[in-house]
């Protein structure tokens, strides 16, 4: 009878961001182990429920066998000549082989073995399956030790490392405990509920886990906690005639840091509504992990929603204390924010400029005053690409980093840009510049919003370009999973913005321009190498961005391997080719394009104006096609061009079937080679298929 399996690792509080990946890793490794040990039906599509919380990682898998089945095993030994002596009696080597498998020599047979010549000693034996409990209790400690933990720690005398100290382990197969030890912690059937009110839980079988935990103030499923939380938050917001300001990220995070969510509604003094809204929201969400409530016209209301980690449904006294506590803390935070706001706005932002010199940009690449000087030059240079006025662009660039000197950004680094915009607006700076300063850090992640104005886009582009150039010039490029300066994100942002704004900027030109400005301040030894490295990096971002949009990866690679100017051109080529490929089969065309490349390798080809020796019907057909394609290339009609390529497939196939390119007649050979050269150059108008 198959049984339910449960493994729960109970720890001290695991950081929210590690929970989901760790749970997935545990689940995958368990399924792999069960499969490998023959305890699971192969091909079964198994998935554990998402039972994880700050203190628990639990995997539940139904249908696990109690016994491994017996396995028929074939062992191959030395050759017949080695196993038997001249009289046909077993040699030492022969008996040793039998002994090794705890069998008698009588059971050894001699047969031909695949991949070897002659007859070899062969033993067929039945390996008895072991009980699952035994197999798993041996394998689980090292499985738990092999979980991938990004920031591992030790505790007490342990030499074991894990994300946080392991304090208890439950492991059940049906009602049987699978016994093992991990760093002095013994597995059992007993676990613990909520830290403050849960107490001990004795599990009699895996299936009871979720309901037993719920009885002890822990909601096992993260999704379930999130659903409940959202419902409670919305209800609390409506109770004061407001609506919850949506915040997916915070909702997810809070669901991961509580075991039993309860929503607490608090208030803050009206005077704080005078603070810029972005600062208020940031204080609430970043520092207090609280949700905001807005009125129907989108204005913040002087309320907030905090999430407590316990059941408060019947406990009004605790609710009152917790609400008061949260109000007190938020009050202190907002007071601080107000203090910074007042201090900062006592002087003009421009007067803070000298302090930019105190702020290091990238190690070896000076400070933010120097960076600002470069940004002004870059903005001036690239303004025309964005159809912008040079003066306004220079002004915006010169103001863009000033807020880094403010106390507010010192306290709320995530508000960089927004604080600058807020303060500049107060000082009467024009709206376009304020908005550009505000949005020049965008996009802050791979799918975050892009700058909405072209001035914002220009600032964002020159800022990222300069950061990339400085980092590459200083040799601080990303390696493996390490990208402390966020260069990949910056590169991808750059690519997305240029595309969104339709800016035909060639990576090489942009990099060289930025490098020349950079090297005025800091000598760059090997400009060409930096340019090449950064261009490759940039191209990888483009390829990544296109593949994110669903363009075939090989298609992107082939299109990028042909000469191109800027990535607007690339994108158009990719989409045209993708459209053509969706409608036509390019397999044989690609194969033959590769073949053409191979044939042309190392051939000395004389350019030959005439094609009078091409007489076979297939080569004449092919020749005609190339003329037609030439005409299309002149008209720059990509879609039609791609379809014409598709129509080349059959003639090309016929050509290779009918003629021998490397004809003995050197003149014919040369004309055919010229035809292939022509084809190759036509392909490269859109892609280098040999890279497919």
């Amino acid at each position: 009878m198959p049984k339910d399996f449960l493994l729960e690792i109970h720890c001290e509080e695991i950081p929210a961001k590690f929970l989901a990946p760790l749970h997935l890793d545990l689940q995958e490794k368990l399924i792999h182990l069960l499969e490998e040990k023959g305890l699971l039906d192969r091909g079964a599509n198994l998935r554990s429920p998402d039972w994880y919380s700050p203190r628990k990682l639990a995997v539940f898998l139904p249908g696990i066998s109690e016994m491994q089945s017996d396995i028929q095993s074939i062992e191959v030994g030395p050759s017949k000549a080695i196993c038997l002596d001249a009289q046909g009696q077993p040699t030492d080597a022969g008996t040793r082989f039998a002994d090794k498998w705890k069998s008698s020599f009588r059971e050894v047979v001699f047969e031909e073995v695949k991949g070897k010549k002659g007859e070899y000693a062969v033993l067929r034996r039945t390996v008895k399956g072991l009980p699952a409990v035994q197999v798993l209790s041996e394998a689980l400690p090292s499985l738990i030790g092999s979980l991938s933990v990004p920031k591992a720690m030790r505790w007490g005398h342990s030499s074991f490392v894990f994300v946080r100290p392991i304090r208890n382990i439950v492991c059940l197969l049906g009602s049987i405990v699978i016994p093992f030890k991990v760093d002095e912690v013994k597995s059992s059937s007993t676990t613990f509920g909520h830290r403050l009110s849960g107490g001990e839980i004795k599990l009699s079988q895996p299936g009871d886990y979720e309901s037993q935990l719920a009885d002890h103030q822990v909601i096992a499923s993260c999704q379930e906690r999130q659903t409940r939380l959202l419902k409670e938050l919305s209800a609390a917001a409506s109770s004061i005639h407001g609506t919850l300001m949506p915040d997916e990220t915070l909702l997810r995070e809070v669901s991961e840091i509580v075991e039993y969510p309860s929503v607490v509604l608090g208030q803050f003094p009206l005077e704080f509504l005078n603070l810029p809204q972005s600062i208020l929201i940031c204080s609430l969400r970043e520092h207090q992990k609280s949700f905001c409530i807005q009125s129907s016209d989108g204005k913040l209301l002087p309320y907030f929603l905090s999430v407590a980690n316990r059941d408060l449904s019947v406990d009004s006294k605790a609710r009152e204390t917790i609400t008061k506590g949260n109000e007190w803390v938020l009050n202190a935070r907002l007071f601080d924010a107000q203090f910074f706001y007042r201090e900062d706005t006592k002087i003009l932002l421009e007067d803070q400029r000298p302090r930019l010199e105190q702020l290091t940009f990238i190690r070896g690449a000076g400070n933010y005053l120097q960076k600002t000087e470069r940004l002004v030059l870059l903005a001036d240079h690239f303004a025309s690409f964005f159809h912008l006025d040079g003066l306004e662009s220079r002004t915006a660039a010169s103001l863009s980093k000033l807020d880094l000197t403010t106390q507010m950004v010192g306290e709320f680094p995530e508000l960089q840009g927004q604080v600058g915009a807020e303060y500049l607006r107060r000082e009467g700076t024009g709206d376009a510049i304020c908005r550009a300063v505000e949005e020049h850090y965008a996009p802050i992640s791979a799918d975050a919003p892009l700058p909405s104005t072209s001035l914002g886009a220009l600032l964002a582009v020159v800022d990222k370009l300069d950061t990339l150039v400085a980092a590459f010039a200083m040799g601080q490029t990303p390696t493996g999973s390490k990208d402390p300066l966020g260069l990949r994100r910056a590169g991808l942002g750059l690519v997305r913005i240029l595309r969104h704004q339709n800016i035909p900027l060639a990576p090489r030109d942009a990099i060289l321009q930025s490098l020349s400005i950079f090297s005025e301040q800091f000598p760059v030894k090997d400009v060409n190498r930096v340019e090449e490295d950064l261009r490759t990096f940039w191209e990888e971002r483009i390829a990544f961005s296109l593949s994110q949009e669903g363009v075939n990866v090989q298609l992107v690679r082939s299109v990028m391997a042909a000469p191109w100017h800027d990535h607007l051109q690339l994108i158009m080529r990719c989409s045209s080719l993708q459209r053509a490929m969706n409608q036509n089969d390019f397999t044989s065309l690609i194969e033959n394009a590769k073949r053409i490349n191979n044939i042309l390798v190392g051939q000395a080809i004389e350019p030959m104006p005439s094609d009078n020796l091409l007489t076979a019907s297939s080569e004449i057909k092919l020749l005609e096609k190339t003329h037609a394609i030439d005409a299309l290339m002149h008209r720059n009609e990509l879609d039609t061009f791609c379809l014409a390529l598709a129509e080349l497939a059959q003639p090309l196939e016929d050509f290779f079937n009918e003629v021998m390119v490397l004809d003995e007649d050197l003149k014919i050979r040369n004309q055919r080679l010229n035809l292939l050269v022509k084809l190759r150059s036509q392909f490269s108008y859109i892609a280098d298929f040999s890279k497919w």
Partner: protein
Amino acid sequence: MQIQKLILNLQEFWSKNGCLIGLPYDIEKGAGTMNPLTFFGALGPDSWRVAYAEPSRRPADGRYGDNPFRVYKHLQFQVLLKPSPANVQDLYLESLLSLGIDLKNHDLRFEEDNWESPTLGAWGVGWQVVLDGMEISQFTYFQQMGGVDCKPVSAEITYGVERLCMFLGGTSNIFETTYGSIEDSGGSTPVSYGKLRHREELELSHYSFNLADISFHRSLFDFHEKEGLFLLKEHGHFISAYEQMLKMSHAFNVLDARGAVSASERPGLIKRVRDLASGCAQAYLLHHFPPAAP
């Protein structure tokens, strides 16, 4: 709750739970961890448990006594348990009860917050403990101290004394909290934190932001380094050298608050402090736990 009462309760609780009750170390420092009872206590294989209150000076946090939440100098209550016991979190929760915090009425979370001190060459992983939305303690499993791996690992608990008092009393100005009371024939007179410390905050803020002599502090930094290295290298003295390191660290903090440390210069200065701290850690281990003769 009065500040002195909070300290007394914590001392009593942790002494009952097997800790020595230590004293603040009489040299300026930026964090309670820098008290030798913790720095050296966390090193080496022997068991160690200690608890003490420690004033912590952060010149850049000075607000001239104008800010109700931030101060140049605040009090930390430190606990170090080596090796970290399996019930360390439960012990901590019990200690809250000794402060009159009945967790039945509160919300408590351990939120990820890892600790690192580049000047001490130390780092650990742990949490900030959040009570009803307020960060009341820092909880750290030391992984390295003075550049040396901690074996076994200690648990360090740091209570922010003033914050905790303000929070428990619902006070919204640090200077209005009550430090303690003087009792005499005239009765009981409460003494506020402000009465004790407000002028000190004002003067020390002025000093570190405006008045401190920059070149004097630069030479202090250099001299203490030289002295420390001399004590360590020539005599193998790690306690007196460690004191020089503490003085270097404070001189650095004053220079920093004074705006005299440029960003590019900063890592270099921090490294010089760290090198002395690491040297002290190694000399301490060599002295107390010499490697067995081959």
